[in-house]
């Protein structure tokens, strides 16, 4: 972004990478897949790089409003400084916070999730797939809570999956009834409270029950949780979990 600013140009869109997308080895693959698609579609985008900070979602949900405000206000200063209007992100937690919570702090942007963005690229004809690698394969889609219930986006990711000619098999708990992966509300950063089972195990059992060999997701934290669950069931050789952007890049 600094480069754009120095050249006095403005990108079409700012790609908000997020902590997971920047640092987590698995989520970095999603970041790269999404960037490759953006490049293939010839989109002029920018990232903030080291000027980006955590949006503050886990801090706020844990109850730590001070830490949330500090990182959020800093981000808003940065974004407003570059006069950013459009933001796309591959993380539904970043998406939700930027879209729904930053306005109250003085940060107003047009924020969309990467599944919405990709769907738009298909609609605009900037992106196409060639009867790809997943044609005819059974895929189940896991709704993340922050894209789904928190923001009511259920159909866009499914429309996107249809582009890949896959056979979409739904889990019993899907869309508004979707079951959480267990990571939200800052659970990602702590041990589970005592119980009978891990939430990701419960979810993975349901996903495996569909007979799908690919689980499609839209959130880096869901991917971590569900991958762990699949490994715990020792099914990692039979069932793969991918972000939708990864399914697309493999079909291009």
């Amino acid at each position, binding site marked *: 972004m600094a480069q754009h600013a120095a050249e006095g140009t403005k990108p079409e869109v700012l790609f908000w990478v997020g902590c997971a997308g920047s640092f987590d080895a698995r989520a970095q693959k999603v970041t790269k897949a999404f960037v490759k698609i953006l490049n293939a579609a010839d989109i002029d985008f920018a990232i903030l790089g080291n000027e980006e900070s955590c949006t503050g979602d886990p801090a706020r*949900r844990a109850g730590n409003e001070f830490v949330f405000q500090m990182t959020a206000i800093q981000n808003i200063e940065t974004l407003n400084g570059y006069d950013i209007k459009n933001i796309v992100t591959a993380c539904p937690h970043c998406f939700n916070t930027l879209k729904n919570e930053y306005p109250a702090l003085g940060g107003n942007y047009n924020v969309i999730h990467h599944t919405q963005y990709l769907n738009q690229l298909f609609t605009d004809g900037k992106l196409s797939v060639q009867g790809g690698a997943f044609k005819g394969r059974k895929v189940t889609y896991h709704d993340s809570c922050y894209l789904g219930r928190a923001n009511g986006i259920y159909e866009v990711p499914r429309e996107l999956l249809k582009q890949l000619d896959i056979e979409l098999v739904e889990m019993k708990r899907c869309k508004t009834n979707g079951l959480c992966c*267990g990571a939200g509300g800052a659970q990602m950063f702590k041990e589970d409270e005592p119980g009978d089972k891990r939430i990701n195990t419960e979810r993975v059992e349901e996903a495996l029950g569909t007979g799908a060999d690919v689980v499609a997701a839209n959130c880096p934290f869901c991917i971590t949780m569900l991958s762990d669950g699949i490994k715990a069931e020792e099914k990692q050789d039979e069932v793969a979990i991918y972000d939708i952007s990864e399914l697309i890049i493999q079909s291009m």
Partner: protein
Amino acid sequence: MIQQIIFILISGAAFFFAFRQFAKIRQTINLGKDHTPTGDASERWKNVALVAFGQKKMFKRWIPAVLHGFIYVAFLFTQIELIEILIDGIFGVHRFFATKIGFLYPVIINTIEILSFLALVGTVIFLIRRNLIKLPRLHKSEMKGWPTKDANIILILEILLVSAIFTMNGTDVVLQSIDPAHFPDTGPLAISSWLGPALFGGLSESTLLFLERAGWWVHILTVFAFLNYLPVSKHLHILLAFPNVYFAKSKSRGEMDNMPEIMNEVKSMMGLIPESEVDMEAELPEFGANDVMELDWVNVLNAFTCTECGRCTDVCPANTTGKKLSPRKVMMDIRDRATEIQANIDLGKIDCKKDADKPLTKENYSDGKSLFDYITKEEIHACTTCNACVEACPVMINPLEPILAMRRYEILSESAGPSDWVPMFTSIENSGSVWQLPDSREDWIQE
């Protein structure tokens, strides 16, 4: 005449005591913090029409929705009959509307008959689901004792109500042929026209007259009993569902309420707003909620609206996997704690005063207990903020808000909370990332 006087006295007393109790509930709900409803009023009315009146969200589970629908619609229509009963009781007349509204009367009475029968079917199936099939969501640990008894009392009262209606109508049908002068023709009735003669045919006129009166009195007395039972029961939802849906916050579900005090403090620390705009002398308030008085009154209204159906707990990922958290229990606990505080204030308990020289009000209340004595930290730590409970509630109760308000109290006011979270907080504060990593945010580009 004596019957009229007794009726007027009893109904007067029933309405008086019920009104007093409802006023008390209103006062208890107002223990919560001021909160001005935000958002569009037309959106709220739409919710009242669709969600409260139209029961839209019930239909996520259609079996209970249909059964509940029978009871609900029967309840709505029976109000017409109740108006007639009140008129009859006060003026000593019999079936006042029968000669006044012509063909509409048999239509209304028949509708009520059919609905009452369906409501009876619904009630019996609900009793079976609760006590014989033992539906898991109705038998979680928070349902032990009073909540289960409460539910059964309500269902049994409903059976009593319907039985009284059919006794009243059935004997009436038989009496219409014996004494048409006093018992105006109601036309054929869907159920009582065959049930009446089958049950009461051949009885003496005096027995019939007694049974007709008994049916009438039992019906109206059960209604009065219900009216006065509502305020101590989960059944209060039949009234509060409507305001509750109206006042439900209309913001995005993913949005947590901003805390402007903290925002301004941080902005002034960062030099973004002049310090003069922030009152540095002001005593920092306690953040979040450790008691009912720090919750929004809407949260407390939510708690009193809850009818303990357990749809929230049934879909809670934490509860489903054996954690202690149950969103329903959170709501029940808030209600019970609010009731306890209001009762102590009403009793004027001196030892509940924060400042002994001031009167005992909600602002001056401290009994050494808090919401955390009802809801443990283990429970609130288990929440994934997934909004499943919020989505599941048929009357738009939000259990997530009080959970997050309690987390805020624990972290901000007590500086406590799960120790696992500390590295995440420090890391965001120091390096702007949720993980303490030495790498650059741009390293992924190199590969």
